[in-house]
């Protein structure tokens, strides 16, 4: 059996805990870890003319930066433990995009870390964990 475990990973402490947790489960089940990093993006945001002009250039820079400082170190850590690993780097709404990735890869589970915002903070800014739990197409593990 070769299940895929999608781990929402942003390089934070919480994300690292989720990755460790998923790796432990992986090692036991022989599954593949999919490190998914989503750059927050809405196609309905408002930009200035200069931002429009530079968008393509900035996107390249952002992708390079994310690949280098977030994806590569995490991938190395997983490989170091001898767990099979894949990576995904996408733009979009974080929870929605993680669901799409899981759906497309026919993943068995999604793992994410929890930042532990206050209830008020989550109400105002929304919480990735909250929306993921409500919309995820597969079982979802939230690591505190």
């Amino acid at each position, binding site marked *: 059996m070769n299940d895929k475990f999608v781990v929402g990973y942003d390089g934070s402490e919480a994300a690292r805990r989720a990755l460790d947790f998923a790796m432990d489960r992986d090692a036991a089940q022989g599954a593949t870890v999919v490190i998914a990093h989503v*750059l927050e*993006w809405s*196609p*309905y*945001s*408002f*930009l*200035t*003319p*200069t*931002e*429009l*002009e*530079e*968008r*393509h*250039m900035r*996107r*390249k820079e*952002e*992708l390079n930066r994310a690949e280098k400082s977030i994806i590569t170190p995490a991938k190395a850590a997983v490989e170091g433990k001898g767990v099979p690993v894949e990576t995904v780097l*996408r*733009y*979009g709404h974080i929870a929605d995009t993680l669901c*799409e990735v899981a759906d497309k890869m026919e993943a068995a589970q999604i793992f994410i870390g929890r930042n532990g915002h206050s209830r008020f903070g989550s109400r105002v800014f929304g919480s990735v964990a909250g929306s993921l739990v409500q919309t995820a197409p597969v079982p979802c593990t939230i690591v505190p």
Partner: protein
Amino acid sequence: MNRLTQRAALAATAFLLFAGAAAAQEQTIDDRINAVFSGATGWFVSFIFSPFPGTSFPWIVAWLVIAATVFTIYFGFIQFRAFPHSIALVKGDYSDPDDAGEVSHFQALATALSGTVGLGNIAGVAVAVGIGGPGATFWMILAGLMGMASKFTECTLGVKYRNEFEDGHVSGGPMYYLTKGFAERGLPGGGILAVLFSIFCILGSLGGGNMFQANQAHQALTGVLGDYPGFITGLIFAAIVFVVIIGGLKSIASVTEKVVPFMAVIYVGTALIILIMNADMIGWAFGQIFAGAFTGLGVAGGMVGALIQGFKRAAFSNEAGVGSAAIAHSAVRTKEPITEGFVSLLEPFIDTVVICTMTALVIIITQQLVIDEATGNYLLNEAGTAIRTVGDTSGVGLTAAAFGSSFSWFPTILAIAVILFAFSTMISWSYYGLKAWTFLFGEGKTKELVFKVIFCIFVIIGASASLGPVIDFSDAAIFAMAVVNIIGLYFLMPIVKREVNSYLDRLKSGEIKKFKH
């Protein structure tokens, strides 16, 4: 060249300092700037607005309307046929999810709109209705609907012939399609047209994209704070524009860009509430609009007067055929340039057919224009140039009075909206002007700085001069862009036709599909 431009920058800065110092000593600096300004630009304005011999119909208005009609017919009423598809494109139904993070159709449209939605919709419409009567609204809507085809043509070309630089940034607009498109078709003269366009674009960016905005922002402020000299508003605005475009303080621009759409929603929302409150008058208002459109109802110039005002304001507000939007739209990420053409045709619709019409309806329904009870015609003011209004207001003052008659607090909101709209339009136009400038003189820090300093100086002049000369020069410069741009569009429209036919065929055959989101 470099030394020359640096010298020019120094001279410009010296002028700025001089203007500031002189203003401190001389209270009538506004009058002086006004006199110098009208003297310097009068010939240009008279040329652009010269009427056909023996009539009072300016040739430039005919030029724009004929172009919009030609494009409408040539593309088989594309603005109506493609309207639902345009909305699907903006929603992102046809956007490849792998392109997320690139400029979306929505973003290109929103940015282009923030350059056009502005004072034209608030003050410009008031000027049109104030001079041309309610009938001007009819011609304005008609011009808006036709203008959708012009916008479609120019924005498609803007994307098709943009320059994509190695570092990934893009530059597009009429300058580029005039040179590259003409070369591709083996036509001569593209280079000359591109240079002419750039010169007029720079003038337009200083006129309608700058001085008119500063001027009306000052009027809006005096409406709330009481009268004070215009150069003070000018200096403050110039300072803020300076930090944004020269100091690179992007956060101010970003915040404005986000607040402006909300202001537009508040504006249209309030207008709708006023219309609902006066629902029984809506039928009467449309009656006035139709009657005025064909008889003039006593306005200066009669039916032709109403028509000219309506067409002029529509063109000035939505800029269809002017070429400016092609610059803003060209940054979108798409494999099909025609899709941006479809999206851009929504711009005159939102700007003119929706927002401008709201303003006009509110002014008419709140009965700001004085009617002669005996004849049912509108009474003219003492000079005989415009309709007499209740509080003797004009421009943005008339709009404020109309909205204020229903909600006393609205003039304050309107003043904030005007200032924000003015500011976002200035930022957009400083970009358009800069693109034209760098097309002429090449890219480079010093060269760009010279333009930006000149731009800031014109903010002060605009706020200080009185409405008449400023509005005339603004219109003239923007229409001059349209002269060159439309010549180019006529020659390049077969290219757009090929694109649109190929695209629509593939859409029909199912080759172009919606993406699952």
